[in-house]
């Protein structure tokens, strides 16, 4: 075990082309899916948290349900859409990074909305009353609301990113874990473990954990700032 760990660390710093490619695909996929999920999810979160329109409560309930969507179910649905007999087959998304990104967007966007909506609905009534009381335009009030939410948006993003990095079920079904193409860290760990190549699996695990550590440290720093710095 100790030597495996030793070898894994050696491997990380050895500049293996395969490892580098896996990390690169992972970073690309995670950044693309988390950023897109943020761009879609934040406006909806703000809308659900501050707007009042018929059907809002139902949409919030649907979103909460989607937050709990099992990744493999999402993977299955995407697979059925993208596969040779699926309705979206002509887009040729199966076994591509784009297909994986789409599956992750479906998984992560509800989480972004679900983190923004309660926050916004908590602060919006006071902001609205204060801004209206001064006679400030709606558009400027929206600007103030978003400014007030900036730490929440940032920590929501980091949450989305760490979900994207750690997710395995959907991306392995849609991406197929093809080496030098769609193999990301989580799917590679699964494959290398199945092949008995524990050193490489462990090396990837360490990198993944280190990334997660950095993200969580940033989140905690952010929360500290939001509380004390304001």
């Amino acid at each position, binding site marked *: 075990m100790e030597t495996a760990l030793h070898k894994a660390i050696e491997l990380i710093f050895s500049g293996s082309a395969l490892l580098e490619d896996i990390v690169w695909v992972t970073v690309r996929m995670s950044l693309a899916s988390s950023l897109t999920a943020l761009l879609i999810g934040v406006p909806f979160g703000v809308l659900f948290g501050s707007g009042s329109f018929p059907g809002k409560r139902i949409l919030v309930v649907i979103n909460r349900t989607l937050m709990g969507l099992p990744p493999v179910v999402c993977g299955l649905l995407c697979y059925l859409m993208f596969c040779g007999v699926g309705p979206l087959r002509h887009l040729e998304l199966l076994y591509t990074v784009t297909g994986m990104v789409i599956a992750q967007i479906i998984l992560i966007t509800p989480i972004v909305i679900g983190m923004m909506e309660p926050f916004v609905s908590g602060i919006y009534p006071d902001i609205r009353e204060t801004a209206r009381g*001064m*006679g400030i335009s709606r558009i400027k009030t929206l600007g103030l609301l978003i400014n007030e939410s900036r730490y929440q948006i940032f920590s929501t993003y980091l949450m989305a990113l760490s979900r994207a990095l750690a997710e395995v079920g959907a991306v392995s079904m849609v991406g197929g874990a093809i080496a030098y193409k769609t193999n990301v860290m989580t799917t590679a760990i699964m494959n290398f473990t199945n092949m008995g190549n524990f050193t490489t699996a462990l090396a990837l695990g360490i990198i993944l954990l280190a990334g997660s550590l950095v993200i969580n440290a940033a989140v905690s720093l952010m929360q500290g700032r939001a509380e004390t710095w*304001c």
Partner: protein
Amino acid sequence: MVLRNLKKSYNGRCVLELDELSLEKGKIYAVIGANGSGKSTLAKLAAGVLGHDGGRTEKPDLSIGYMPQKSFAFRMSLRKNMLINGDDAQRAQELLGALKLGHLSEAKAKRLSGGETARMALARLLMRDYELLVLDEPSSAMDIESTLLAERLIRDYRDRTGCAVLIVTHSINQAERIADEVLFLSEGRLIERGSPEKLIKHSENEITRRFIEFYSK
């Protein structure tokens, strides 16, 4: 100016029922009444920040400034909070100074104490000239000195702009100091209105007398 149809009910319970409220430009009106008597509801309806039910409140077309009972500080410096409501940096500094917040203009507004936040919120509202000013317990979190400074600021603002001021207060003393006319609310109804002298000292209304007597103990 006349405001009509100031009515609001929650779940079928009527918390304010007022057919009309006439106010004169250049005058300060104090609204007094017990907790839950509908003062804030009146302020919100007059300011137009509360959704109406059934009968819509009719207001003359005026610019109205409203300060909620709970002051809100935006997540930025005091100076930037002030500039949300106008762009005259010098006026912002003068207003902050008038409420003894001048030295805090670069401080984070979220870190202010309750009374300081209320002072900032009042100063921020006065950045702009309104024709009607509605203040919901502006000084309930302030100490005596700040309360007197705030009253002077409100009076000066009124003198300069000629606006009407509706100020909700729990302090009979404040009503006497600042108001040209006092309005007494009880259970959502306007029981009596009149000069401070008449309403506070010589009211002929039984409910008003009991309320004032209780408060001056």
